[in-house]
């Protein structure tokens, strides 16, 4: 259901200032087809350098069209006055712009990642639009996720699985699986990778890396410093981890995307 206000509906059904000014003194373009929103604004100045006429064209949903429709000569003059005024209402951007398509800053991305516990670029896009346009900032968004989630993992761990005193073989395997699910996989998923528990023989834990991890040059490091460390911490100190190399680790075995 649309829950638009009557005012917005009016501006959508009866848009004002549509079109293009002939021989414009200035043109403003923002957004793109990929984003799902795009605006092209043309305007003409009078002899005093004030806006004489302004028109828009917009590709987008009803709210995009209605809000463009508000951009009259008067509204633009008011916006310019506001911008020049430099008084308390002046709009200041906090942080640095990461997503140029939607003007989203690193501070904003950090906030949504932290508050909503996001681990993928796709999730960030769904929460704050960042990365939903040209996609050029995906690398930077990934770094932010890594940074924020890295801190978080240190700050507040999931309640650790019950650390067993004497475990039966079945209990031990279950605890290993649980530790991998809760303590290891989320970190790997943030990098587009994954891990699978293959087998447990005595104290030897056989695992396979999937997705990005399968081709990763430092997976050996990940195995020792992350997987083995976590298993020793949460299950038993004498465990050691080996990668299953009997062909089962072939990367095409796993084709999940995002």
């Amino acid at each position, binding site marked *: 259901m*649309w829950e638009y206000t009557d005012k917005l509906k009016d501006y959508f059904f009866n848009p004002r200032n549509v079109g293009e000014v002939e021989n414009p003194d200035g043109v403003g373009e923002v957004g793109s087809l990929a984003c799902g929103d795009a605006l092209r604004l043309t305007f003409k100045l009078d002899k005093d350098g004030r806006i004489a006429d302004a028109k828009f064209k917009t*590709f*987008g949903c009803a709210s995009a069209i209605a809000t463009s429709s508000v951009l009259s000569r008067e509204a633009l003059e008011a916006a310019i006055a506001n911008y020049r005024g430099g008084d308390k209402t002046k709009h200041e951007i906090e942080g640095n712009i990461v997503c140029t398509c939607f003007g989203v800053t690193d501070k904003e991305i950090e906030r949504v990642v932290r508050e909503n516990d996001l681990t993928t670029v796709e999730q960030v896009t769904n929460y704050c639009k960042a990365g939903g346009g040209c996609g050029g900032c995906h690398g930077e968004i990934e770094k932010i996720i890594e940074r924020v989630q890295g801190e978080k993992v240190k700050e507040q761990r999931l309640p650790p699985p019950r650390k067993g005193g004497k475990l039966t073989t079945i209990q031990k395997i279950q605890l290993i699986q649980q530790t991998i699910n809760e303590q290891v996989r989320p970190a790997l998923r943030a990098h587009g990778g994954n891990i699978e528990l293959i087998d447990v023989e005595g104290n030897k834990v056989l695992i396979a890396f999937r997705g990005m991890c399968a081709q990763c040059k430092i997976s050996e490091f990940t195995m020792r410093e992350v997987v083995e460390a976590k298993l020793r911490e949460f299950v038993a100190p004498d465990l050691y981890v080996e990668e299953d190399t009997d062909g089962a680790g072939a990367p095409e075995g796993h084709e*999940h995307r995002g």
Partner: protein
Amino acid sequence: MNTIYFDNNATTRVADEVYEEMQPYFCRQYGNPSSMHTFGGQVGLQVREARERVARLLGCDPGEIIFASCGTESDSTAIHGTLEALPHRRKIITTRVEHPAVLAVCRDLESHGYTVVELGVDKLGRLDLSELEHQLDDETALVTIMSANNETGVIFPIEQIAQMVTSRGIVFHTDAVQVVGKIPLNLSKSPINLLSLSGHKLHAPKGVGVLYVKKGTRLAPFLLGGHQESGRRAGTENVPGIVGLGKACELALQHLDEENTRVKHLRDRLEERILRTCPDSRVNGDTESRLPNTTNISFEYVEGEAILLLLDRYGICASSGSACTSGSLEPSHVLRAMGVPFTAAHGSIRFSLSRYNTEEEVDFTIEKMPEIIRRLRELSPFVQSRAR
């Protein structure tokens, strides 16, 4: 203003005959079908009758029908129930274009140690069966692939897939909510193990669904409790819903031909005229293998939600793959999987018809559509840049 309802893949109107048949089971024959007394027991007979009617539409044995609360419950039961019955197998194969009722469950299972393979589709929305064959192995517990896509109407070669999967001893489930009542089925002759359907997609009320479980298929119960549905789905039966679904299935069997002749003809007329009168429009999906009631059309340079809102002013109900209002910028995951360019994916509209639609409704829509598209294109900055 009259409502012109072209959104039947979302839900359908309850047929008058269905509504009528349901009515006694609210205030008069409200007994519990499990009761020993005649008052309740006679209701049990009606549930049995409904089960037989559903079985007739599916071409299966009534004992293979489990009533559930909706298509989503049937999907969840099929997936979880199969995995629980086969604890040593930990791989699931599905597709990138499934309904969220399947896709979200599979992706959740991935975080519980399962390996999930999502098969891709080509630009017409078709699966590559050799890719599926390549993925089948001894680790695979379940393959779950929809019978037809809800957004594009593209039909998958489900019998062939079921044959390929089950011959390897792997369980095959299909979400058939868009297909039942539109395409003839004969499950007694099919290797399909599990099939989900939803009442409200075929003129029965909301709140009732079915999971078909082929005899011999191992499935752990999903809802535990009483002995209803032979202990495979506990919970007192939704008697009015089940009776309604039974009637709806009987009607669907009678109207199968109409779906594939009159309704299909209306859809074709709508599609063909819109493509002709609206420049830069195109159909999404394989038109060779498609549900008779569905068309998904992209209008370049304009946005789907804006089109819907203008259609809504004329009382025309359709839906869009573009989901601006849901907070996500992503155009539909189905169109994205098909590689439909952004220019077209944002402006996609799905019309899904039913036997209640008329030629007048189709013609009214055909008449309004070019004006709506022209109007939005006048606003669009992308049209100007092209030579006109």
